[in-house]
């Protein structure tokens, strides 16, 4: 499974970093999210899915 943030859609709601702090970080300049891990362990996959479900803008894309 791969996870990414669609940069043009993210508006910096920051909820992904709340749900999955080990998968997403927030940019210093505007709080928009980016992915900080290459390989997702099963535990991080759960976190990432939780974040995707909670993104108000639907900016988190998961490729199975």
């Amino acid at each position, binding site marked *: 499974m791969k996870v990414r943030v669609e940069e043009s859609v993210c508006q910096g709601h920051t909820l992904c*970093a709340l*749900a999955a702090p080990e998968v997403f970080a927030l940019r210093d*300049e*505007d709080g928009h999210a980016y992915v900080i891990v290459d390989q997702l362990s099963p535990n991080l996959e759960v976190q990432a899915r*939780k974040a995707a479900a909670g993104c*108000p*803008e639907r900016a988190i894309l998961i490729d199975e």
Partner: protein
Amino acid sequence: MADSKQMPDNRVVVDFNQHTPEYRAEFPQVGHAIREACPVAWSPNNGGYWVVTGHDQLTELAKRHDLVSNHRDSDGTKPGYDGISIPSREGAYAGFLEMDPPELLDYRKVLNPFLSPAAVKMWAPLIEDVNRACIDDVIESGRVDFVDDIANITPAVLTMAMLGLPLADWVVYCEPAHAQVYTPPTSPDFERVIQGSMAMAARLAECVAEIRVDPKPGMIKALVDAEFSGRRLPDEGIIGTCALLIGGGFDTTTSLLAASLDWLDTRPAERQRLLHEEGLIDTATEEFVRYFTPAQGGGRTITQDCEVAGFEFKQLDRVFLSYALCNHDPAVFPDPDEILLDRWPNRHAAFGMGVHRCIGSNLARMGFKIMLTQILERMPDYRIQGDGVVQYESIGVINGYQHVPATFTPGRRLGAGVEEALVDWQGRIDVGEVWS
């Protein structure tokens, strides 16, 4: 109903007005009735406008800033573009919240670095200390008005600090900033309130001029200094932005805190959970923001005949994106009228959606958590005096309170009061200790 296309000639007409006492008494129920009729319905009130109560429809509309405009015509070049207020109004211009991209993006680029999750952390010590001082001023008496004594003060002082204005001036802006959102447009007092809002803008214009001469660090200085390929931001935009940041900074976190304390009044077990369950304050903050939706929604103008989210709109139609009513849409939030402190997912629209996402959201969250935690720790047995609670007369702009009096078992002071704390922080700011 939600999937059917509504042509203008068979639009679903509803009797909706977000400024009425009926709306104030039970806005979620008002929303359910309208959403069931149609998630994008037409109200003939306030000059006629679409009211959006469906979360999916709102999300789609908010993303289409090319078709759904925030612009306010301040110079007669775009008649019919009435900005974010419904009904349209005179008074202070709401800065970049009444602009569209690309103009809007210049302002956000300047201000985002002050308001990102990383940047706002530098203000935690000021928030903690000023809020501590607010509590100390009342802790020995056993009586507090959560709005007048705490929630009005801490966010306002913080806003002054971040703008680069004298901290003591929070008092000058406090009454006009709150009155301009809680006075319904039909009130006999509305004209006076608009005058107050204009006077505030005039004072801010003087402050901006002073900062050009004596450049104190802060968001005003950053706006004044900003340059985009040799082009400066216009004064009108800077002054409107200051008014916006004061309105947004003063009134929203205040309202959220007052509403949350009111809800927690009869729930001692929830107070304990918030203090002791790890991470609960984070999801609870999102849930309080969703449930109460301090900034209830925003007006927009349709830029051309178009179809969005399955609905047809005509050029210059006015639209009210109701964040509050969409936040109670049962299709997205199971049991929408219950507060579930650990609710997840919680894709609420309380900070807006799309390019206008509340620029102060990170500051709001942090400030709210600090203020709430301190109150729950130091006034653990508070009880609100119900007959003294005064809700805003209109909650159509901000879902807030003017007064929330309470009693509690008196406690011990921890330090100086607000007056002394502000002198102390002003001193630290003036010698350059605070801005990093």
